[in-house]
């Protein structure tokens, strides 16, 4: 299968909504388009699993390459392995769910769905790129529309948040670009190339790596809420409309983790080992500090945003541990957190639509009035606090086991600090659930609320299905990503030899 369909389909859908004015028509097209994305990625999964090489090596499959800008040797070079495929599946699920929860987006619906679909095209392009320049291009494509999404459809201090988010992410992109340019000009064979495979097979010298790694790492790291560059997360998430929050936390934050893994770590393995202690310290801080900061939040979106800082900390933490188990755990955490946080934002949106508040203290006893939505809320919460049977548990435990394999004092201390977050997470999740969902019913008006509509139910069920599938049968995703993580481990161990 030609992977470029993954870019073409969302783009075509985005264009297809433009001639229409009625919300009814627009949302149907968007739904059909995002359903087609999911279908396409499931077909891709099937083809991938049938591929004879998929289990053997971490090689990129379904490769294709088109010249994009010959003078600089930029190609639209695409290909996937299990890691990118799991990201693609995540994107497809989150986008479909995002379209479903935006079913009643009356305000400028055409533009809204156009931008949402454009974002998804950027995300797919990013995950399938094997050329770091096109990857960078798609990264930008997945940032700019967010400015409009938050600025126009957002709430609260939306202009401030939109500006802050885009400026911080643009700054991050600039750092990424410096890193990429460094790789381009410092190829050991003197060849100027953006090709990820060429760069990874013949990595730059240790000095070059150590100089440019921080640029690429911090740049990508900002996307995944690297401490102390995470402050765009709470404001951005809480001002964004529901679907944009879902996309932002579910997919955008994963762009960073994926970039750290694919570009920073794979191409510059020597530097990754060199800087690993810093990565571990910063991400352990993010995990623990993020969870303590969450404990004090009173707005549901802020709670989920800060908890995202804490949870995505596990991604960088796992990568910094440089063991196969921990890196696999980091990848699973990306998928898991993507699904879970999308579900959480979706359900927060559903609650907000009905109660018109996100203040925890102003709600209570929703379970009595809207049982379906409340149950989804509890499921999202339990996933967040790492209950076995849901995906978060698998990811966190893999990171913990993988981290403990390192016997250094720093590694052990950081791991204990990170494990402590499971208690703090329980505290803030149960506080929110205990007040919003349980407890006495706050207002009589709650009984007039309508429980979830079909589209809301479908969105929730899709995301929960993903969460439960990983949680109940983690061997599936573990097998899927194993060759890819194996390949990264080979690069890492080759560099230390």
């Amino acid at each position, binding site marked *: 299968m030609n992977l470029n369909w993954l870019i073409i389909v969302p783009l075509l859908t985005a264009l297809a909504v433009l001639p229409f004015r009625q919300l009814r028509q627009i949302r149907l097209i968007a739904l059909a388009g995002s359903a087609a994305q999911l279908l396409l990625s499931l077909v891709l999964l099937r083809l991938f699993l049938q591929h004879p090489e998929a289990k053997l090596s971490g090689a990129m499959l379904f490769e294709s390459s088109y010249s994009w800008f010959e003078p600089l040797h930029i190609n639209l070079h695409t290909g996937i392995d299990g890691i990118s495929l799991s990201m693609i599946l995540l994107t497809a699920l989150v986008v479909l769910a995002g379209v479903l929860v935006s079913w009643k987006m009356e305000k400028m619906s055409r533009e809204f769905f156009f931008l949402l679909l454009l974002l998804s095209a950027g995300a797919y392009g990013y995950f399938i790129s094997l050329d770091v320049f096109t990857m960078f291009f798609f990264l930008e494509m997945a940032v700019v529309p967010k400015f409009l999404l938050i600025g126009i459809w957002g709430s609260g201090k939306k202009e401030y948040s939109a500006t*802050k988010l885009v*400026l*911080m992410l643009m700054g991050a992109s600039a750092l990424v670009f410096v890193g990429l340019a460094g790789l381009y000009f410092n190829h050991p064979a003197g060849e100027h190339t953006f090709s990820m495979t060429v760069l990874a097979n013949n990595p730059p010298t240790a000095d070059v790596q150590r100089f440019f790694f921080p640029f690429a790492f911090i740049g990508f790291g900002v996307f995944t809420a690297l401490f*102390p560059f*995470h*402050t*765009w997360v*709470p404001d951005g998430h809480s001002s964004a409309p529901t679907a944009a929050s879902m996309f932002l936390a579910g997919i955008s934050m994963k762009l960073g983790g994926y970039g750290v893994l694919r570009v920073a770590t794979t191409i510059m393995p020597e530097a990754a080992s060199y800087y690993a202690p810093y990565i571990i310290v910063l991400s352990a801080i993010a995990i623990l*500090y993020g969870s*303590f*900061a969450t*404990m*004090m*939040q009173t707005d549901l979106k802020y709670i989920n945003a*800060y908890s995202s800082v804490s949870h995505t900390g596990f991604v960088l933490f796992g990568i910094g541990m440089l*063991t*196969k*188990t921990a890196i*696999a755990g980091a990848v699973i955490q990306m998928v898991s957190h993507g699904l879970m946080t999308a579900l959480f934002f979706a359900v927060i949106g559903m609650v907000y639509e009905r109660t018109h508040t996100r203040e925890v203290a102003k709600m209570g*006893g929703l*379970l*009595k009035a809207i*049982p379906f939505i409340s149950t989804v809320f509890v499921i999202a919460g*339990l996933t967040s*606090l*790492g*209950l*076995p*049977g849901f995906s978060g*548990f*698998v990811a966190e*435990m*893999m990171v*913990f*086991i*993988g981290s*403990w*394999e390192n016997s250094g004092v720093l590694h052990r201390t950081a*791991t*204990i600090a990170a*494990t*402590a977050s*499971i*208690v703090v997470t*329980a*505290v803030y999740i*149960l*506080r929110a659930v*205990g007040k919003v*969902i*349980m*407890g*006495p*019913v706050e207002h009589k008006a709650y009984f007039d609320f309508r429980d979830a509509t079909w589209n809301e139910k479908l969105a929730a069920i899709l995301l929960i299905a993903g969460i439960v599938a990983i949680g109940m049968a*983690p*061997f599936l995703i*573990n097998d899927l990503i*194993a060759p890819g*993580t194996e390949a990264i*481990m080979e690069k890492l161990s080759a560099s230390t030899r």
Partner: protein
Amino acid sequence: MNYAQFTALLLLLPLASFTVLGIWGRKYIRQASGIIGTTVLLVITALSLYAAYSYFLVDGQTNGTYQPIIALQLPWLQFGYQQLSIDMGILLDPISVMMLVVISVVSLMVHIFSLGYMKDEERYSTYFAFLSLFTFSMLGLVISVNIFQIYMFWELVGVSSYLLIGFFFTKPSAVAASKKAFIVTRFADLGFLIGILILGIQCGTLDFMSIIERLTNPQSEAYIGMTSTGFLGLSSLTWALILVFMGGAGKSAMFPLHIWLPDAMEGPTPVSALIHAATMVVAGVYLVARLFPVFQLDEIAQNIVAWTGATSALFAAIIATTQTDIKRVLAYSTMSQIGYMMFALGVSGYGGEAGLGFTASMFHLFTHAFFKSLLFLGAGAVIHYAHSNDMLHMGGLRKYMPVTHATFLLACLAIAGVPPLSGFFSKEEILLAAWQGNKAIYFIALGTAGLTAFYMFRLYFMIFWQRDKHYHSDHGEAPFSMKLPLLVLGALTVGTGFIPFAQWVSSDGKPFETALHLDFSAAPIAMVVAGIGLAYSFYRKENDKPARLSAALGSLYRSAYNKFYIDELYLFVTHKIIFRFIGRPAAWADRNLVDGTVNGLATSTENAAGAIKGWQSGKVQHYALYFFGGVLVLAFLFIYLWK
């Protein structure tokens, strides 16, 4: 024989019942959900009894020793390090088979009882769905083959307990209790998790049997590695075991992690009988028993187990004498009895007669499950009738509730340790093991036995005797569905003591004989008689002796009545210290320091831009000025500095 198929059903059936009742129960099969859940449990009980029959009596033994049977083992998640993997499987050995029987029988009784007790509840089907979830998790816990499997089911029983404690979710106290139970046990599980990490990585496996095999071999790499490395003067092995035990202590409500158990009584009473008396709270004891071959290698860890158990036993018994909420008295008595089980493991040796403590602990777990769930269900029937939890509002109930009264009395006699009821035999063995292992603990246990008899009969007399408080109940004693479990459990309370337990369950799988030593029993029986006698004189009829005594004891009584202020201590630490000194500063720093820097950068950029934006005035004169200025500066540089 092939255990794989029918033991797998033990897990699949309750999981299926949870799914069906959870998804469709509310809307479509509300009325039938109780019947569905109970039928499933009936099948499970039959399967468990069959498993016990075939294991203990048909083919569990090889060469006179009960061997563990791995009925099923499926790799579930493989880690890229040595042989580390999480396997899902079914391990049958004497203790797990014994637990299967306990869990399924008690759960079945609770299901039947709930048919009547929860009949008018709005969330009737949800209740049964949660009960199925709990049964699934608890069964999965005891048959775990892998220490990570047990951890997973451990968390799942925790969440089932959370859901059931908070079942009456509109009551703020129930919500608070459910949170407290989950968070306190989560904190303990943090220790458990780190313990697993140490054990797993150092042994190179997470499989129970392999861990035990490697660590009990003093020449093995794992054993040498774990005993030669250490931290703060304790070896890795000791640390790992203490941390694992921390998880067990949390789940089993051992001092000082017990604070959640009394509050957990906010849940429906049948739930308290099942989860917070008979099954989940003994999971910690079970965990230590599961790793007992390793625990007995390490003296420090075993002493910690013993002293935690003994302290909890005495501590809880003292508090129980002062409480007036019927369920809270029972909760403290549960904590106290689990303390007995725990220290029995702590003082036990390994193998043959030396392993008496192990057998005694499991025996007490077994008998206690039945008489304690009987006490709770009886209390449930009383609460159902009297519409109150408080003993002060009760009295003279024996006339109105003959069945409840008779069975409750049996259970009280059993827990006090009156021969020939089941509790007598198991407690006797524990005391004997303590006498042989640690005299100090023996005397604590002896004193606690007297206290137990006293507070149980205080409870009994205050409910069923004393002055008739005249109830305006619109129904009779209880429906048949509530009486039946009382009668069955009553029969078990009488009968289970006569089971030749040491023939079946022992530390190394080899059967041995236990005998009653009448001379040894004299002291405990005297204590019990004294306890009951004191309770009789204090509480048979209302009088002022209790008040005089509590006044005489003064602050001691007040401290015990206020549960020694442990809750207040925890509140202080969590709210005053963690929230105020960690949470709030973290949130503040994030908004002001970290984000302040970001905003500061933005502001200074803006200011800088504001300062220089005037330069782009669009006036030709200004540009000409800059141009000439520039030329002058360049000329200056060129002329003076170039050379």
